[in-house]
C-alpha cells in the first residue's frame, strides 16, 4: 500500500513540474502585454460639445467607427479601440513608430467641403466614393478623388456653373486648393494638389476615405513608452520576479523541509493556473499587474505558513502527525478565509472603480487570491496526505515541526 502512495505522490509532483517546465514560458509570453512592457502609445480621446455639434450617443458611436477605420487604414498592428464611459474613447497602439503622427490623425475632424465662388458649401466628404494618393503629371503629390454617383452629378453641376471662376476645396475650414474651373467636369473625378510629400497625401487620403468625425474630439491623455524602455522594464521585471520566487522557495524549503517542498510544488502549479486564468480572461499584463502577482504569491505562501505553523503547534501539543496535519488545515482554513476575503474586498473595489493599470493590478490580485486558496489549501492537503499515508515519514522534523 505504501509504495503505491509514494508512486502516486511522485507521479503527481512529476506531472506538475514537467508540465510547468514545458508550458510556463510559452504561456507567459502568449499573454497580452501592456504598453508599459512592449512599448506603444495609449491615447484617451473625449468627444466635446461645440456650438455646431452637440455630443450624443450616436455621434460617439460613429466616432469610434471612424477612428477604428483610420487606425486600420494607417496599418497599425493589434490596436485596441475601446469606449470608456459616455464620451471617452481609449486607443492603444502597440509598437507604433511615430506616435505623434498617428495621434494627430486620430483626432482630426477631417470635414471636407467644396465651395463655389460665393463661398457656399455645395458638397462635402459624404459625396466621395474613394480617395487615393498619387503622383500627378507634374511630379507633384496629389490626392485623387472619386465621387459617388450623386456626388458626380453635384460636381458636374458645380463646375458647369463656375466656369472661369474659382472653386475651393476645404478641410476643416482651411482651404486646401482653390483652382479656376476651365471647363465642366462630368467624369466624377477630381484631384487635390498641394501636399508637400507623398506621406502627407497618403494621410489626407486616409482621412477622406474614413470620413469626417461628427463632433470635435480632444486628446485628454497620451502616454507613449518607447520600445527601449518597454523592453528594459520587461527584462528587469522578469529578473526581479525570478529572484523573488527563488528566495521564497529557498525560504520554504529551509523552514518547512518536506512540507516546504510540497508547498513549492503547489506554488509552481499556482503560477501556472494564474497564467492560464489570465490568458483565458484575455487580461493584459502590465507592470502593476506583475506586482499584483507578486503580492498574491506572498499571500499563497502566507496560507501555507499559517497551515504549517498551526500543524507544528498541534504536533508539539502531542497530536499524531496525521491528526496534527488535519487540525492544522481545518483551523488555518478559517483564518485564511477571513484574511483573504478581506483583501479580496479591496481588490474587488479596485476592479470596479479603478481604470487602466489599477484595474490590471486588481485582476491579477483578485484572481490570484481565489486560485491561491485552492492550490495552497486543497492541493497542498492532497499531496501531504498522500505523503503521510506512505508511512515512510514518521518524524515531525521532516515536515518542519
Amino acid at each position, binding site marked *: 500500500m505504501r509504495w503505491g502512495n509514494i508512486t502516486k505522490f511522485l507521479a503527481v509532483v512529476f506531472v506538475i513540474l514537467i508540465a510547468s517546465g514545458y508550458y510556463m514560458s510559452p504561456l507567459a509570453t502568449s499573454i497580452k502585454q501592456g504598453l508599459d512592457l512592449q512599448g506603444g502609445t495609449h491615447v484617451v480621446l473625449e468627444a466635446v460639445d461645440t456650438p455646431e455639434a452637440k455630443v450624443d450617443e450616436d455621434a460617439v458611436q460613429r466616432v469610434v467607427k471612424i477612428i477604428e477605420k483610420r487606425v486600420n487604414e494607417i496599418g497599425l498592428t493589434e490596436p485596441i479601440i475601446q469606449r470608456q464611459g459616455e464620451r471617452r474613447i481609449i486607443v492603444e497602439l502597440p509598437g507604433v513608430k511615430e506616435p505623434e503622427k498617428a495621434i494627430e490623425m486620430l483626432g482630426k475632424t477631417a470635414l471636407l467641403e467644396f465651395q463655389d465662388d460665393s463661398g457656399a458649401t455645395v458638397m462635402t466628404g459624404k459625396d466621395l466614393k474613394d480617395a487615393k494618393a498619387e503622383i500627378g503629371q507634374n511630379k507633384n503629390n496629389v490626392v485623387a478623388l472619386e465621387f459617388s454617383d450623386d456626388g458626380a452629378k453635384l460636381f458636374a453641376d458645380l463646375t458647369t456653373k463656375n466656369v472661369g471662376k474659382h472653386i475651393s476645396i476645404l478641410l476643416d475650414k482651411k482651404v486646401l486648393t482653390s483652382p479656376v474651373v476651365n471647363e465642366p467636369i462630368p467624369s466624377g473625378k477630381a484631384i487635390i494638389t498641394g501636399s508637400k510629400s507623398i506621406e502627407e497625401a497618403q494621410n489626407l487620403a486616409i482621412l477622406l476615405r474614413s470620413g469626417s468625425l461628427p463632433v470635435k474630439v480632444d486628446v485628454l491623455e497620451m502616454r507613449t513608452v518607447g520600445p527601449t524602455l518597454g523592453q528594459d522594464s520587461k527584462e528587469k521585471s522578469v529578473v526581479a520576479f525570478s529572484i523573488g520566487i527563488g528566495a521564497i522557495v529557498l525560504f520554504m524549503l529551509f523552514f518547512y523541509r518536506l512540507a516546504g517542498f510540497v508547498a513549492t510544488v503547489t506554488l509552481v502549479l499556482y503560477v501556472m493556473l494564474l497564467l492560464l486564468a489570465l490568458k483565458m480572461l484575455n487580461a493584459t499584463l502590465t507592470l502593476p499587474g506583475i506586482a499584483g502577482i507578486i503580492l498574491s504569491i506572498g499571500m499563497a505562501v502566507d496560507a501555507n505558513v499559517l497551515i504549517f505553523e498551526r500543524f507544528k503547534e498541534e504536533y508539539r501539543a502531542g497530536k499524531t502527525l496525521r491528526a496534527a496535519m488535519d487540525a492544522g488545515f481545518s483551523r488555518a482554513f478559517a483564518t485564511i478565509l477571513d484574511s483573504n476575503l478581506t*483583501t479580496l474586498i479591496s481588490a474587488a473595489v479596485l476592479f470596479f472603480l479603478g481604470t487602466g493599470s489599477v484595474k490590471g493590478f486588481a485582476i491579477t490580485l483578485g484572481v490570484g487570491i481565489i486560485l491561491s486558496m485552492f492550490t495552497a489549501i486543497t492541493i497542498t492537503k492532497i499531496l501531504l496526505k498522500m505523503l503521510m499515508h506512505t508511512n515512510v515519514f514518521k518524524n515531525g522534523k521532516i515536515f518542519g515541526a
Partner: protein
Amino acid sequence: MKFDIIGKKYWFFLLSAVIIIPGLLSIVFQGFNLGIDFTGGTLLDLKFARAVTVSEVREALKEHQLENSTIQLAVSDQIETSQNVFIRTPELSDDTRRVVLSDMEKKLGTFDTLRVEKVGAVIGSELTKNAIIAVVIAWVGMIAYISYRFEFKFAVAGILAIVHDVFLVLGVFSLLHKEIDASFVAAILTIIGYSINDTIVIFDRIRENLKTHKKTESFNELVNRSIWQTMTRSIYTVLTVVVATAALYIFGGETTKNFSLALLIGFMSGAYSSIFNASPIWVTWKEYEERKRIALKTSGSK
C-alpha cells in the same frame, strides 16, 4: 516568560507617533511631489547620447518659458550628470512639444525618447477623486465584513492600524519628496489589503482564544498569548513579501522603483501595526469598557 507587548502598549503607540509625526508635518508644510497623473501636464523621459546636467536642460528650456519645469536625473545619487532625464512641464500642446524637443536636440545633442506622457487636468482631478472614493468604499466593505465575522471593535482597531500605515507611507513620500503617480494609488490600496490581512490573522487567534477564555486570565494576558502564538507566522509572512518586493525594488526597472518602495515601507509598517497597534487598541477599548461596566455595577450597588 515572553516579552509583554500589551503591557508596553503605550510605548509602542508612542513609537508609532514618533515615526509618523515628522511625515505628517512634512505633508502639512511641504506637501506632496505630485506627478502629472494628478496635476495634469507633460512628462518627457529622454535618454541623451551624452550625459547632461540639470542646469543645461533648464537653460535649453528657457527659450520656451519652461525653465520652471521639474527636471530630474534618473540616477540621482550625488551624480550631477546623467544621460537619462525626466522633465515635467505644464500641459504642452502637441505642436509646442515637437518644437521644444527638436530645439533640445539642437542644443544638447541627439536623444532617444523613452517616454512621453500628456495628462489633461480633468484626468488628474478624476484620479484623486476616484482614489479617495475607492479607499472609502474599501474601508466600509472591510468594516462591514469584520463586524459581521468578528465584532465592530475589531473592525475599528484594524482600520486604525491601516490609517497608521497609509499615513506613514504618505509621510515618507512627502519627506523624501518622491513623486506620487497613479501607481502609488495602487500601492496604497495593496498596503491596505496586506495590512488588514495581517491584522485579521491575529484577531482570528484572539477570537479563538476567547472561546476557551478562563476568568482568571485577563484580556491583556489573552491578547499577549495570541500575539505570540502567531508571531512566527507574522515574521515569516512579512519576510516573504518584503523579499519579493525588495527584489522588485532592487532589480526592477526605473518605472517600478517608487511603486515598490511604497510597498516595501507599507508592508513593514503593516506587519508592525498589526502586532503593536491593532490588538493593543482593541485591548485598550475592551478594558475601558470593562472598567466602565464595573464602575456602573459598584455605583449601582451602593
